[in-house]
């Protein structure tokens, strides 16, 4: 049976795995749990490959492949959301990345988590995440995509808070979910607006209707612009862009494989995916595009600067992730969607690798994460060292490594962009380039601090040991990928055709790939050169600071304490949010709304009325003095009243029944 007609199998398998492990895994030994979890993901990986094969084998007349409708999920009035899955080139990329990297990380986890309690819980969550992520990438309408969107958020909440005994972990999980919710708020509104405009939320229908429409002018906030900005708001939440990036660094509280899978390779890229998926809309909204580009660019450099001074090995990687995501958005913002997706893929490889390697380091150091207490590990854990170095080279943009090509393509596209003025591109480039420098700097700083120099840990207590092969295997595979993964898009000056852009052509339209083609010859080479140069500079600085004279960094930190602290404390953004939003909200809720309005205001009024009635009642009672003479007087008064009324009031106006 062709898988294409049964796409639901691919997401369903992990779900089953999750359910089985979650409900029954509690009493099972790790082996069985592994079997279930790996089996589920492995199988779905296999099915995914098969599906891709069939998809690529489809005759041209079957393209684009129609979404598969399984059942109606929500139907109300004119609204209808089906449980529809689709597969196209973009999906193919995401599908392979998710299942593939996911599978590797599952394998890795069997080693990494071996000694943790709640083993089955972990894998159940992990599989659940796979399910939702697959739904996200395969969904054929926004609502179903939103299912995956929220689902992965949930899983990240669960997995970040996996060590729920640690308050910091629980807090981080909560933070992640809530910040994501803020993004989702925008995303939902975006969907509503789209529905109002197009009367449906199915991708094909929406895009078909949107394509011929008149696109908004720059600076005009038409439907497209607003809708795109709202969707992008969701993206910033999910993909940790300014101003909603704050949750991602904290998310490092989760187990390292989680950071690798969710907070580097897959989930955080969902935002990019959505933007790319909705490229039809975005291309109709130049303003939104510009915003995306600017935000991405700003995030990139912003996060990079913070990354410079972090000492926690995972924190560094986290900020670099934020920064790299910024790159991807920059790409989308300047219309180079394929470049963005390409970077997404390569980034998935090398960042996952970096995290896993870091995990392996931490594993080796027995849980130590602070780079200041590492050093000189290169001998002791050779495999880890090599693989991590590869990844670093990749991300730093060393030629021939994956990151080089993708980043190169992005910078190129940015440079060319003229959306919002002739110089936009140059400005973006001018920001993007230093980011590259910073990237290579902090990455090599990480390498040097970790693997070179003298050991800065107590060797008697910490017995550094290489990780088991269950962990090293994935490292190696990923290393290979992060070397050759980039060759899918050999730049033109290298002579090869840009497979990747062409492959995604059907999705994004060949227009922009053509544009790049045109620009390529004149620009690509010099720009590539510049990029390499900057990477080298970064490397050099790192080398000088952390190998040549190790005392220097502290000196620098002292000399520029203000800057240093600002960076170390991440520009005090968290504190800012706390002071500006959370505290006032809590205060208002407690003392104004609850104690004020509820208790004092409303209840006060009601009780006031009640007590008023009682006091009147009391006076009424006291009329009842028990003294007959007073009673007589009351009767007299009554008599006077009655007589007066009868004499001086008009007689009754007489009305008939109303029938």
């Amino acid at each position, binding site marked *: 049976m062709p898988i294409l007609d049964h796409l639901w199998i691919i997401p369903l398998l992990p779900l089953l795995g999750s359910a089985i492990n979650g409900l029954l895994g509690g009493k099972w030994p790790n082996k069985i749990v592994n079997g279930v979890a790996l089996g589920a993901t492995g199988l779905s990986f296999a099915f995914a490959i098969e599906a891709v094969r069939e998809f690529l084998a489809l005759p041209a007349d079957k393209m684009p492949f129609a979404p598969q409708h399984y059942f109606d999920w929500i139907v109300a*009035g004119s609204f*209808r959301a089906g449980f529809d899955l689709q597969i196209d080139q973009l999906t193919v990329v995401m599908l392979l990345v998710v299942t593939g990297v996911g599978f590797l990380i599952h394998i890795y986890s069997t080693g990494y988590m071996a000694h943790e309690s709640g083993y089955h819980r972990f894998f159940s969550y992990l599989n659940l995440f796979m399910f939702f992520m697959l739904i996200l990438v395969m969904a054929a309408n926004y609502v179903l995509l939103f299912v995956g969107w929220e689902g992965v958020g*949930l899983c990240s909440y669960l997995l970040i808070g996996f060590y729920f005994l640690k308050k910091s972990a*629980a807090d981080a999980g909560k933070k992640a979910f809530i910040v994501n919710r803020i993004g989702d708020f925008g995303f939902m*509104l975006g969907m*509503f607006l789209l529905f109002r405009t197009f009367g449906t939320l199915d991708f094909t229908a929406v895009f078909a209707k949107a394509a011929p429409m008149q696109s908004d002018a720059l600076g005009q906030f038409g439907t497209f612009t607003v809708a795109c900005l709202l969707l992008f708001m969701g993206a910033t939440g999910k993909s940790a862009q300014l101003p909603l990036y704050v949750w991602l660094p904290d998310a490092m509280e989760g187990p390292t494989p989680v950071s690798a899978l969710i907070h580097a390779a897959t989930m955080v890229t969902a935002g990019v995916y959505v933007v790319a998926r909705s490229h039809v809309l975005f291309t109709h909204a130049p303003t939104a595009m510009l915003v995306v580009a600017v935000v991405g660019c700003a995030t990139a450099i912003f996060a990079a600067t913070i990354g410079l001074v972090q000492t926690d090995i995972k924190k560094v990687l986290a900020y670099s992730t934020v920064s790299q995501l910024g790159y991807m958005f920059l790409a989308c913002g300047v219309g180079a969607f394929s470049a963005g997706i390409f970077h997404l893929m390569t980034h998935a490889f090398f960042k996952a690798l970096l995290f896993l390697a870091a995990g392996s380091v931490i594993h080796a150091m027995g849980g130590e994460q602070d780079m200041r207490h590492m050093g000189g590990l290169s001998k002791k854990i050779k495999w880890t060292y090599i693989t991590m170095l590869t990844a670093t080279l990749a991300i730093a943009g060393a030629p021939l490594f994956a990151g080089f090509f993708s980043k190169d393509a992005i910078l190129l596209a940015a440079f060319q962009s003229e959306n919002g003025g002739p110089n936009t591109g140059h400005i973006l480039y001018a920001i993007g380039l230093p980011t590259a420098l910073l990237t290579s700097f902090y990455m090599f700083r990480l390498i040097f601090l970790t693997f070179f120099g003298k050991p800065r840990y107590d060797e008697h207590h910490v017995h550094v040991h290489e990780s088991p092969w269950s962990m090293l295997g994935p490292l190696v595979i990923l290393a290979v990928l992060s070397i050759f993964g980039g060759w899918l898009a050999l730049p033109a000056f290298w002579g090869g055709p840009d497979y990747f852009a062409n492959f995604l052509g059907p999705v994004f339209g060949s227009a922009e790939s053509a544009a790049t083609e045109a620009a390529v010859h004149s620009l690509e080479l010099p720009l590539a050169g510049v990029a390499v140069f900057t990477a080298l500079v970064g490397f050099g600085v790192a080398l000088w600071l952390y190998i040549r004279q190790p005392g220097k960094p502290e000196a620098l930190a002292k000399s520029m304490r203000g800057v240093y602290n600002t960076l170390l404390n991440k520009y005090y953004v968290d504190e800012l949010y706390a002071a500006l939003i959370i505290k006032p909200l809590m205060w208002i809720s407690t003392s104004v709304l609850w104690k004020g309005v509820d208790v004092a205001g409303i209840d006060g009024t009601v009780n006031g009325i009640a007590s008023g009635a009682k006091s009147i009642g009391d006076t009424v009672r006291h009329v009842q003095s028990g003294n007959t003479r007073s009673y007589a007087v009351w009767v007299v008064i009554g008599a006077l009243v009655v007589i007066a009324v009868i004499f001086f009031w008009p007689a009754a106006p007489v009305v008939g*029944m109303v029938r």
Partner: protein
Amino acid sequence: MPSGPLLSILIFLPAIGALALLFLRSDDHEWIRRLAFAVSLAEFILSLWWLLRGVPLGSAGYQLEEIHRWIALGPHGSAAQTYINYHLGADGISLFLVILTTFLTVVSILCSWSSIQKRVKEFFIAILLLEVGVVGVFLSLDLFLFFLFWEVMLIPMYLLIGIWGHDRRIYAAIKFILYTMAGSILMLVGIIWLYNATGTFDLPSIQQALQTGALVLPRGTETLLFLAFFVAFAIKVPLFPFHTWLPDAHVEAPTAGSVMLAGVLLKMGTYGMIRFCLPLFPIASKKFASPIAVLAIIGIIYGALVALVQPNLKKLVAYSSVSHLGFVVLGIFAFHPISMQGAVFQMLAHGISTGGLFLLVGMLYDRRHTFEMSQFGGLATPMPRLAAFFLFVALSSLGLPMLNGFVGEFLILLGTYQVRWSWAAWAATGVILSACYLLWAYQKVFFGEITVEKNRTLPDASARERAILVTMAVITLWMGIGSVFITSRTASASQTVIDQMTRPPRAEEAKTPSTVAPQARQQPNSGSANAAPKTNSLERLGTR
């Protein structure tokens, strides 16, 4: 197709059960519980069977109608002779509300199995009588009858809170009953006024007369009548300024009481709005739509914010239902078919999820006899299962897709957005806040190290508790995924409500292919609609 006075049986079966309970020895707790359970279960099964069979898919108007002359008004044999009818009927909306009621009754009987030890007999009698009242409210089509059940329901609830409640139960009970009465007595005046204007208490015929223009209420009258009805319902819901009775009532009520209160009683308010305010007083409804929507939005945000800072777990859940019901009211008063559908669905979803939350809170209470979150913390370690269920229900309550909470909220917001985007935008902040307070509470209760020694040895969910919770969870999931099963049945009913808001002057507009058209066309031959296969009926209801 079953036949006979089904609805009457549905209404009065629990009463018979209560009567039977009277004859049991009051110290024979075990059999009292069993009998009560049996009765409620039978009721549940019957309601499922009869109503789902009796209200065919896509059928418009009322099914399974029963109508008998009951009380004669006006001089005998004279022209002014009219009758208060005993008139019952079910449509897509009441259908599921009844099922929800019967189901939650079973649940609340189960969850009181061991937690109620004093005056057991009276307790279960009260629960069953409560069921009578609520089911009656949902099924009666005569204003008088409706009011009758509406009031009858008060007393058992009042006793539930007042006798089996916690420390400040009496205050809460009195507050509850006085608030509700204050509203309903005005509604009584309204009902009578309406009778005076129309000459009958029979809802469908009044409805007919108004819609066909055979009878036109003066604007002023309509406004006052609308307010008389609306305030009663708003207090019940409760809508923002009238909500303060709810937290007290919830905190003091026993678990079963809270479950019924949150699960069903609050819905009576929104049901009333759908059934009476909109169809009978459309002009006034439209006139007041904006202020009401604003109140609803205030309620959403307000309830959420106050929930956010509650140290008391049960109070938190109570305020959360203020917030959730705000969504429902908003959905109703957006007058959009989608949001209307959403509102109806949200009523059911909220019944299940908040009911579940109260169940869980009650289970915690049974173990620790406190609602203060400071007393909990780290409970996930001793009771992982309970923690898991709690998370599940919390997620459904904060509207996670694929769980029941999402569908309702989403549809409400979607529909509202089509009418007035700013409303939807404001309301949607509630979605963020709900995540905040629920996760916040969840963390405080279940995460972290155990702080109080007592908590270290708490038992996890017992078999019975697990049985209840699993059922709840399954339903939650099913409603989240298979929502179409419900929406396809509520569709025509809620569409009818929208249609009924049209008045002769605007009749011809209604003919034009607006949202109204399909049902309008379909109403005459609803009989054939029953036969129509599901898919195309869905097409008819859904895409157009």
